[in-house]
């Protein structure tokens, strides 16, 4: 399944990119995170993050579909 992942802030720095299209067998955002964390060595644990799919907050266990855009959201610090 082909997906888009966008990276922000610390995740962007650790992934070394702002976005990428990738082919993955991960059925859920949780599994996708585990896969990418193994690849990039993210220092944040999944429990510290939220996730968005197609620009809306999502459960980690949602079923991903081809073409989905996924964003892992580290602790926010606006203001």
């Amino acid at each position, binding site marked *: 399944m082909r997906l888009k992942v966008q990276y*922000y*802030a610390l995740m962007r720095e650790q992934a070394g990119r702002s976005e990428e299209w990738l082919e993955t067998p991960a059925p859920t955002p949780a599994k996708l995170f585990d896969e990418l964390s193994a690849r990039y060595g993210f220092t944040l644990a999944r429990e510290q993050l939220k996730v*968005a799919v197609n620009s*809306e907050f999502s459960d980690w266990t949602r079923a991903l579909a081809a073409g989905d855009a996924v*964003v892992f959201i580290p*602790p*926010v610090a606006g203001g």
Partner: protein
Amino acid sequence: MFRLTPQPIDTGAARREILDAGAGGYVSFEGWVRDHNEGRQVTRLEYEAFAELAVKEGERILGEALARYPVKHALCVHRVGSLGLADMAVWVGVSSEHRGEAFEACRYIIDEVKHRVPIWKKEHYVSGDSGWVNCERCAAPAHA
């Protein structure tokens, strides 16, 4: 309405958007870049937003404030990009018939924006290093 801007926030223009002849009170909040945070000397900040979701979540927060408190208008503008000391990072304005609700709604909005809107800031320190606020422990594998 919730807006992101890479330009300095024009508070005069923002204020005019929520003026209302039926409103007797107006409360605004401005968040400024401090010269220190958690004991470290800060020289500048970079703000980064996941724009599409930030605007959606910001609009939801403003909608909640308008539903919860009987206020007239509410507006929030958040800056993104590189900011220097004393620059304004965020502005919230609320106009209301009575002042109590304006204070409560303004506080609700800034509290929720800080906790929920996907915006991040990286602090640059006098010492030359930098760090993502709220991610310090996570950023250094040695500390994990």
